[in-house]
């Protein structure tokens, strides 16, 4: 490539930087297929402990039970922290479907 600039610029060198990030590669996971019906399935309802979340979840439980789902209720100790690993494991092993409810 011809440099049309009449002044001569000093040659630029490549800069090597150290990556400040966690360098993780995000793995993609397949979603579980949507069930045809909730009848007979165990549905977990996770209350994150926000105010009035229970109002919403009570109504969900009512509707899901009418649809023939076996509903189980779970609750995070506080909405400000991620669900404890034991709780996540419990839900994953006991339920086929889970609904996490946010409210305020």
């Amino acid at each position: 490539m011809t440099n049309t600039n009449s002044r001569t610029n000093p040659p630029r060198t490549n800069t090597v930087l150290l990556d400040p990030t966690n360098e993780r590669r995000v793995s993609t996971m397949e979603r579980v297929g949507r069930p045809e019906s909730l009848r007979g399935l165990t549905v977990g309802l996770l209350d994150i402990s926000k105010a009035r979340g229970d109002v919403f979840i009570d109504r969900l439980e009512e509707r899901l039970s009418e649809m023939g789902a076996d509903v189980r209720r779970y609750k995070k100790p506080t909405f400000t922290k991620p669900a404890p690993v034991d709780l996540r494991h419990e839900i994953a092993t006991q339920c086929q479907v889970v609904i996490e409810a946010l409210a305020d």
Partner: protein
Amino acid sequence: MSSIELPNGLVIIVKRECETCRMVVPVIEQLRDTRDDVIVFVQDDPTFPSGMDVRHDADLSVSWHHDIETVPTVIRVVDGVEVERTVGWVRDEWERVTGVGSLGGNLPAFRPGCGSLSVDPDLVDELRVRFGATVLSARRVETAAAEDEFEAMFDRGWTDGLPVVPPTEERVMRMLTGTTRSPSDMVAIVPPDLVEVTVEKIAINAVMAGCKPEYLPWVIAAVEAVCNDTFNIHGVLATTMPVGPVIVCNVPGTRAIGMNSGMNVFGQGNRANLTIGRAVQLVIRNVGGGRPGEVDRATHGNPGKISFCFAEDEVGSPWTSLAASRGVASGVDAITVFPGEGPRCVVDQLARDPESLTNTFAACLRTLHNPKSVLTFDAILVMGPEHARVYAEAGWDRDRVLEELHARLQISGEDLVRGAHGIAEGVPERLRGLTLPKFRPGGILLVHAGGGAGLFSAIIGGWANGDVGSQPVTREVTA
């Protein structure tokens, strides 16, 4: 262990540029006449000393690996191991180390040496990378020659919206000299992605934030202090409220690194205050993956989420420090992290007695977040020196100030229930008959800071406190 072994015998390291090295040439000749195991390494000019068979430490690897700080240095090596050394010219020392007497009879008994080329400020960063960069395990990212590296860092999402210093190997190696910890040491697990962060990754982000190496221990301590279940940086980051980690630093190290505890203490202009807090936030962003609009859901945020870090003025304080009140021994460097919003000013220019001033503080603290909110949030009260003087003159200590404040912040349930004073917000009706404290015990943190003129103080409001939210955390700072 050094990677460049020294030959057995007497090793003498010199450079022509050094006048003391030139002065001791006759001594080196005298030694070579006496012993056949004298090996001379020269750092700069391989023809020096003239006529002598020398080894040229051209890449300074021998000098670097054997920590040569001064030339001349004489080292006695037995079986590949250094037994003893002397630096500069001290006749007695040279005679002791070499085992040869009557050295340099016509020379003065003592003359200091010169700085080794391997510690030359113009070379040391490059040498540190040449001989030490293999300890760095971060991925190398090469920018194209035509690429502006500042723009490249914006494009990669590495910044908080302001330019950052390019984290080159040289700069990161220099940053790492600020700590005795190994670059590979794991410091904490950083939310929200729950990724282990090493000293090296913190150093990279500290370079980007603009820190000096001597700030690094403070940054490491702050990262440790926020990344745990007690402080809960995950929640502090994710909340819709406008809070971020507020870092209060306590002496003596704050003065050594030039932190500001006085005039414009929360403002612009002080490198240590601004870059330590910024480095912590960059670690959360880059290592933890905590970015605004993603896990950070703040409705408004606040400018302190770029950096909010300051030192307490302990020298001018009538009280024990915040760190001491939280169990840190006096004279020990410490930081306290608090989940805080931006500061707001308390003005009281007429108070000359502590009762009146306390009434002002209580009235202002009462309105924190909502006048009808109680027990949910903590606060830092940053007392300006002119206000603190009112208490000092009246003989009120820290405990008395806090006790009197809490006593004035007991609020009748009548004023707090939902709907009272035409405000829907409030506590449930069943609490109407109670008297409730605005703050939980220990919920007001008292700090002394600010400029010497102005009858002002500041309140920094907190976030959901206790086990359900975030607790202030205090950590000692160690090199």
